């Protein structure tokens, strides 16, 4: 079968294809990450890992809505000390394994990165919208994002990606801060702050009361964020938010994404990675394009 080569070099990492498993999805254990590698993911990102064990928020932690998914997991994780073994099992999957890490300040990020040696890259989670003291409260402050990124870069020689929150007035300002701190790439977007209420009782449904929206509803939001970041930054942008088909992936790349991440769409099908790569490959072949031709294409059209 002659198929278009989808391999890319992303922040120095070699990926067989640009479709990556997003953080927080089927990434709690090494064998689950390995399974996703086997399903065709070009790389996999782990569940976000912190410095101490965390149970996360009470259930319900995730809901499927008509327009997408609402979740507030609350960063459950066994701490880096207990996750090391899982990371090494995940590495047996044969694709780059990116460790997602979260902390409240630069020192905490450094401690976790040092404790999780062996990851192919680190993705700094400064964007979880519903965990107190972490995530968005960190990621909406450009000074802190720059400091954390710089600290992470000082700690490790492997690439550092910074995952951004859309819950800000101007995501580009935060992306620029990450870039100044030395980020090798930015990842956009994390989930969009949101809420659902049970009309039978009046109770907010999520155990945490509110959470983050993902899935089809947020894709246009993500496309705009990626478009703006691509325009402003010199480092690669990794697009994430509502991608569930090869068409969605192509759109995100045209906005400026060098690679994309897939999260909630595993709900429909864990084989989504192979499905997207084969569709993408056929699309490129039919149009006589390579990946570089489509990344940022929308910008080139506008400039013409």
């Amino acid at each position, binding site marked *: 079968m002659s198929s278009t080569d989808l391999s890319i070099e992303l922040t120095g990492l070699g990926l067989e294809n640009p479709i990556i498993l997003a953080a927080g999805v089927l*990434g709690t254990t090494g064998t*689950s990450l390995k399974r996703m590698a086997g399903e065709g993911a070009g790389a996999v990102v782990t569940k976000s890992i912190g410095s101490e064990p965390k149970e996360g928020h009470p259930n319900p932690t995730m809901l499927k809505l008509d327009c997408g998914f609402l979740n507030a997991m609350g960063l459950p994780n066994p701490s880096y000390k207990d996750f090391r073994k899982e990371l090494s099992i995940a590495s047996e999957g044969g694709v780059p394994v990116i460790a997602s890490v979260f902390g409240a300040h630069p020192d905490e990020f450094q401690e976790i990165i040092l404790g999780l040696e062996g990851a192919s890259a680190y993705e700094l989670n400064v964007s979880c919208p519903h965990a107190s003291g972490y995530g968005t409260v960190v990621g909406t402050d450009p000074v802190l994002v720059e400091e954390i990124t710089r600290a992470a870069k000082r700690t490790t020689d492997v690439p550092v990606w910074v995952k951004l929150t859309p819950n800000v007035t101007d995501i580009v300002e935060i992306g620029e801060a990450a870039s100044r701190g030395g980020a090798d790439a930015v990842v956009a977007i994390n989930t969009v702050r949101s809420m659902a209420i049970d009309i039978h009782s009046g109770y907010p449904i999520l155990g945490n009361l509110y959470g983050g929206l993902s899935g089809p509803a947020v894709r246009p939001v993500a496309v705009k964020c990626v478009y703006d970041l691509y325009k402003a930054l010199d480092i690669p942008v990794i697009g994430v938010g509502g991608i569930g088909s090869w068409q969605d992936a192509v759109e995100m790349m045209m906005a400026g994404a060098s690679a994309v991440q897939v999260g909630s769409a595993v709900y429909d099908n864990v084989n989504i990675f192979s499905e997207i790569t084969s569709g993408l490959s056929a699309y490129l072949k039919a149009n006589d394009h390579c990946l570089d031709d489509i990344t940022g294409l929308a910008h080139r059209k506008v400039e013409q």
Partner: protein
Amino acid sequence: MRPVNAEITEIIRETPTIITLRTDIELDAAPGQFVMVWVRGLDEIPMALSHPGSITVQRVGEATEALSRLEVGDSIGIRGPFGNGFEVKGEGRGDGDGGGGGNGEEYGDEKGNKIMVIAGGVGGAPLLPLAQQAQSLGLDVTILIGARTADELLFEEYFSKCGAFSVATDDGSKGHHGFITGAMDQFNLAGFDQFYICGPELMMKSVLDILQAAGLEAMAQLSLHRYFKCGIGVCGACTIDPSGLRVCRDGPVFSGDLLIKSELGKYHRDATGKKIMF
């Protein structure tokens, strides 16, 4: 889906620690599928359906304690049914296969039609609808139920109407004195075509070890319990080693040959994802 509002219509005291909550909703669920039960403002937990509109609850923690305090007229939120459920083999016997041209009578041999249901404690909840369905399909059903004491035997009366029936109690207060595995000795296991098992994990592991020794592990279907978060196959909190399969979505029912090579009986994970040894 958002939780559906389910009003409690009847509360049945099954044993000193187990109650059944009947509700005003009816779900089209296969035996072995589960629902996420939301006690508003507190927690949401996975529960087996013991009937299309009923859940059967043992008090084991805060959420189940809260469920056991509910009264008729109170309501809970229900999402589901989720998961795969048990596969009832022998179903559809007598149907042609579409290409063979044989007559239906050739399916009249008993192949696939003699099943054993093995339930420990509250593990009887998903197995009762399975036993009832198997009986209505005309299968030859043998049921073994076990509990710590006679008082804790679940659905004794209902199960006894579904086929050949035996019990085991740890303290010998009724039936076989000892674990349920001891009660399996009286049967020629090779004469059964399928085994359906649900109960405490170490009990399931012991039962599966016996079946494996007889070379029958591939004919067993076991319903596994793990800590669930999302319940819909996205978060990954309930995946099992080494397959990485999701208990909430790829399960909760798995075949014995898959589980014999798994973490079953060795460890599970807590809410943080940390391994907890059995």
